[in-house]
C-alpha cells in the first residue's frame, strides 16, 4: 500500500495533543517548521524561543530544546542563544501582538544587527490568547473586542506590514510572506522556511518568514470560513512573496 500521508509525530513534533483551537493556523505552522528542521537532520542542534501568546506552549509540541521569553522579547533572547551557539539553528516563533506590538523594538534591532537566527512570525490579525483584542495587524474595518465597530484609520492607523518594514533593514537578508490557507500555499510556506534556514546556516544574516494564519475563535468564523477569510481579506492587504533574499539568488 502506498502511504498518502506520513506523520511527522515523534520526530519533529511530540505526541502531545495541542491546546490550539480547531482550525487554528499554529498547528500547521508548527508542523512545517519542525518537518523542515527534521529534514535537515538538525533537531538535536536546534534551539527555539517561544513567545507569549497562544503558542507560549510551543515547546510542548516542538521536539527541540526551547525556552519561553517575556512578551515581545524573543528576538533578544534568541540573540543571546545564537551568540553562545553560533553553529546551531536558532529560531524565535512569535505572534503578531508579541512581535509587531510590544516587541517591535526587539525585532527591528535583531534585524539591524543582522542576527543569524530565523524568526517565524504568525500573523493572525488579532490577539489570540487574550481573547480577540485589536492587534497592529488587524485589518481596517475588522471587528475586535477593542474595536467593536471595526478598526478605524483615524483612531488606530493602518495595519502594519512587518515583512515590508523589515525588508528595508540591511541586516535582514531573507524576508518572505507566505500563507497557510490552501494546500498549495502550505507547500510554498514550507519552501520559505527551508530557504530561511538555509540563509541562517550560511550565516548570511537575519532571516524572517511571516505566515498569514487563521484564528477562527476570535474572528468568530468556522475553521473553513476562517481559511477563506485569509485568502479574501488578508492576502490582498498583505501580499505574499519574497521581499528580500541574498543577491546571488535573485
Amino acid at each position, binding site marked *: 500500500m502506498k502511504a498518502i500521508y506520513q506523520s511527522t509525530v515523534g520526530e519533529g513534533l511530540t505526541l502531545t495533543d495541542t*491546546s*490550539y*483551537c480547531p482550525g487554528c493556523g499554529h498547528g500547521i505552522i508548527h508542523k512545517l517548521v519542525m518537518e523542515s528542521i527534521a529534514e535537515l537532520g538538525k533537531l538535536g542542534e536546534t534551539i527555539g524561543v517561544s513567545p507569549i501568546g*497562544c503558542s507560549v506552549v510551543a515547546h510542548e509540541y516542538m521536539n527541540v530544546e526551547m525556552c519561553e521569553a517575556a512578551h515581545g522579547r524573543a528576538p533578544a533572547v534568541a540573540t543571546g542563544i545564537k551568540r553562545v551557539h553560533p553553529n546551531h539553528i536558532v529560531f524565535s516563533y512569535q505572534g503578531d501582538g508579541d512581535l509587531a506590538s510590544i516587541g517591535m523594538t526587539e525585532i527591528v534591532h535583531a534585524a539591524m544587527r543582522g542576527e543569524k537566527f530565523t524568526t517565524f512570525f504568525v500573523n493572525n490579525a488579532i490577539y489570540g*490568547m487574550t481573547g480577540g483584542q485589536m492587534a497592529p495587524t488587524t485589518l481596517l474595518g475588522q471587528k475586535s473586542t477593542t474595536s467593536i465597530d471595526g478598526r478605524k484609520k483615524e483612531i488606530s492607523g493602518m495595519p502594519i506590514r512587518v515583512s515590508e518594514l523589515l525588508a528595508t533593514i540591511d541586516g535582514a537578508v531573507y524576508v518572505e510572506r507566505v500563507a497557510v490557507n490552501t494546500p498549495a500555499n502550505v507547500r510554498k510556506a514550507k519552501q520559505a522556511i527551508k530557504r530561511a534556514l538555509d540563509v541562517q546556516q550560511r550565516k548570511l544574516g537575519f532571516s524572517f518568514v511571516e505566515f498569514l494564519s487563521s484564528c477562527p*475563535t476570535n474572528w468568530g468564523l468556522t475553521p473553513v470560513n476562517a481559511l477563506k477569510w485569509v485568502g479574501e481579506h488578508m492576502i490582498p492587504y498583505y501580499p505574499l512573496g519574497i521581499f528580500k533574499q541574498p543577491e546571488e539568488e535573485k
Partner: protein
Amino acid sequence: MSTNRVMIAGSGGQGIILMGKLLAYVAMEEGKEVTFLPSYGAEMRGGTANCSVIISDRPISCPVVHKADIVVVMNQPSFEKFESAVEPGGSLFLNSTLIKDPVTRTDIEIYKVDANKLAEDAGIGRSANIVMLGAIVRQTGIVKIENVTKALKKEFSGKKVVYLDANLLAFQAWKTG
C-alpha cells in the same frame, strides 16, 4: 436565612455564562445578595466553560463555589468533572441529550433534562440552556418564575426580540422530573 450555591458547566458554545448571569440578575432584582464567578482563561480554549452563582439573604463572603447545592452539567466532560461537586442532599441537573453515562451517586437528587431535544421542539435548538434554566427554576424555586420571564424579555429585546417567543417556550419546556 438561606444560601444557595449553584455551579453550571458545559462547553464553550452552550450559553453557560448566560444561564449564570440570568440567574444572578433575577436574584439581584428580587433583592437578594448575589455573586457570579465565571471560569476564565486558557481553560476555556479547551472548550469547557463553567460558572458559579451564589444567592443569599446576607452578604456573601467568597464567590468561589467548591461544593454546590445545585449543579448543572450540560455535556459529558462537565458531568465527569462536576458530579462529585454536588453537596450530599443537593440536586444534579443533567442534560440527558448529551450525557448518557449513569449517575453513580445515590445521595443526591437527579434531574434528567432532555435539553437539546426540548429546545429543538420549542423551535430554537440553541436554547438548551434556557430549557435547563426553566428546569432549575421550576424544580428548586431558587428565584421566581415570573421574574425570569421578565429577565428573558429584557435579554431578548431590540435586535434579539425575534428569539423571544421561542425562548419563552424553551423556558417552559421542561415540566417535571
